[in-house]
């Protein structure tokens, strides 16, 4: 494409197209920048800050910052990696995340990032918040114990499903996901097949009666760490280059 331009990510020149974010440019180049609130089919939100990178030396969220010609991006300095690990640890202690019996274990992006970053145990004290489960819908349930307030469901329901079934309410520590119905999730018009259900990165929004159907060993992150699919592109490109 004629308007394609070049920027530098981790000391490598990569191509990008107008309108791309740094995250999109990195994905296309096979450089994995960890993310939680970001999702390829959703408008960027910039809330989790896990994708923070250095843009010309300044910290910026890769999911919301447009890529521009000549930009110099560092995605994985020691400081950035430490910063991301701390963010993940804070998310773990802020909610009630019991991986050992959670049905999203092995497919959970938060857990997968914990593994990828080598998190053994959080350095912050567990908060043990009291959070509610809403099982009032016949086919979908929400377990707020595991919600990380990424807002993917809010955007997916509004922009992809055309329902706006989810919304944030409250502020600060009181912030939580609420439903567009007085009587809870069961009063909304969401369906089990909605994208809002599918995009939840953790075990907060679940299709009922489907847990544990995928055996251990075949779950998304059982074999390869999160981000491997993106990094495989770079490896494949490098392999092809060597053959030329």
């Amino acid at each position, binding site marked *: 494409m004629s308007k394609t331009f070049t920027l530098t990510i981790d000391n490598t020149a990569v191509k990008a197209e107008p309108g791309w974010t740094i995250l999109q440019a990195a994905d296309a180049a096979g450089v994995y920048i960890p993310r939680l609130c970001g999702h390829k089919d959703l408008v960027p939100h910039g809330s989790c800050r896990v994708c923070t990178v250095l843009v010309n030396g300044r910290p910026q969220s890769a999911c919301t910052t447009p890529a521009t010609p000549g930009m110099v991006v560092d995605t994985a300095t020691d400081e950035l990696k430490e910063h991301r690990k701390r963010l993940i640890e804070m998310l773990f202690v802020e909610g009630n995340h019991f991986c050992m019996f959670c*049905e999203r274990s092995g497919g959970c992006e938060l857990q997968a990032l914990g593994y990828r970053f080598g998190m053994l145990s959080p350095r912050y004290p567990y908060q043990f918040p009291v959070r509610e*489960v809403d099982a009032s819908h016949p086919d979908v*349930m929400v377990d707020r114990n595991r919600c990380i307030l990424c807002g993917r469901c809010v955007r997916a329901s509004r922009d992809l499903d055309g329902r706006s079934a989810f919304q944030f309410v409250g502020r600060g520590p009181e912030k939580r996901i609420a439903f567009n119905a007085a009587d809870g999730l069961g009063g909304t018009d969401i369906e089990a097949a909605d994208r809002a259900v599918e995009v939840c990165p953790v075990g907060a929004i679940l299709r009922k*009666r489907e*847990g*544990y*159907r995928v*055996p251990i060993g075949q779950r998304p992150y059982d074999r390869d760490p999160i981000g491997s699919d993106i990094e495989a592109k770079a490896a494949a490109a490098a392999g092809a280059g060597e053959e030329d």
Partner: protein
Amino acid sequence: MATAAPQTRKIVIEPVTRVEGHGKVTILLDEERKVRQARLHIVEFRGFERFVQGRPFWEAPVLVQRLCGICPVSHHLAAAKAMDWIVGGERLTPTAEKMRRLMHYGQTLQSHALHFFHLVSPDLLFGFDADPVERNVVGVARKFPDLAVQGVMLRKYGQEIIKATAGKKIHGTGAIPGGGNKNLSIAERDGFLKDIEQMLEWSRGALKIAADYTAEHLADLADFGSFVSNHLGLVREDGAMDLYHGNLRAVDAEGKAIFDQVDYRKYLEYIEEEVKPWSYMKFPFIRSLGPDRGWYRVGPLARVNICDAIDTPEAEKARAAFMELGGGKPVQVTMAYHWARMIEMLHATEKIRDLLNDPDLQGEDLVVTGERRPVGIGLIEAPRGTLFHHYEVNDRDQIVRCNLIVSTTNNNTPMNRAVEKVARDHLEGVEVTEGLLNRIEVAIRAYDPCLSCATHAMGRMPLVVEVVDAEGQRVGRGAKGVSLSAEA
């Protein structure tokens, strides 16, 4: 109640040892300083029945198995069996049922091997009074290295079976409401078939050790920690042993049925639990006989006693030899638990061999569902005995009530009786001697209780024994594996 006045009795709960499995025994004396009663205090408190409330029902088999790290498969399967009823999927597909059975026999093999080789063999090989420095698994490895290796390899084989069926060796996810989530690949099957003859050979060897030991020492063992009791367990419709599924049967000391072929979903009509103020563990009993006469034993001894036959040839032959010990009645020798346990280990190994040769394990049809129900009850014969899981689920798919009667709870009164018997026979004066401590430990261990699994492993179950006189004053005390100064 015994004469110890509650207001003067000192209850000590030491938090560190508590979580690792801590046995505490109080021996209560009468005015003539004779043993009046012995109490085995169980101070572990788990709380699963409460914190499973509100959770979605399909989570229970994975959540509740966290009760234990030794036999989680039992809880996993008992909960899954209960959830089968919730989803109307109790008639499992052949592949799902056989995968679950394979998982269960793998677990029986590994748990019985662990208990026999690792925990019990030091007592049998070195004698009750041998120096604890030698009387442990390391001592066995030093003096009987072949035997130690067999124990490790048998357990490993069972654990690998669990991994192949549940996904992980500990705390897997293989059983789901109405079925399972995987079958057995040809490669997995062939990997197990390669070693099955060796496992059978070692299981036979272990059975021989247990049988010969009992026969040789029968004069001493017959009375050791022994007493007459009822026995309870699941049996198949034809009366044969079935560790995975069956109906409830209870027999009295004469071997006569107290009840038989009871649908286990009606267990509450037949069994009740009594609470005593000095233990967190309840005391179950058969309703029709009441708490004083209705207590019963579960586990290997009970299962071999109550069944009419075992459907694998080698274990059946061993059962016939075992039953001669009782002379036509149930065997009441506490130490015969070990022999019965090894009969079951051979049975489980034979079952594994038969299942591995069954092409149903490669089937693809894994889950069935039907009419949704609000109550699910699942029973299974866990390595330590009959395990009860009972759930009520609301129309939002959340668990609202849960009742668990675990195997060791069923054996609560029998363990107390065993300790009492040992105390009567071996307490001289008020001094808690090393010999008494050893014998109490050996008697408790016959039941393979779950309370002591962690530190028990190195032959150092923390055990405190106190002797309390008729006025409620502590007059004797002894301990092993725990510091009394830290305790007091």
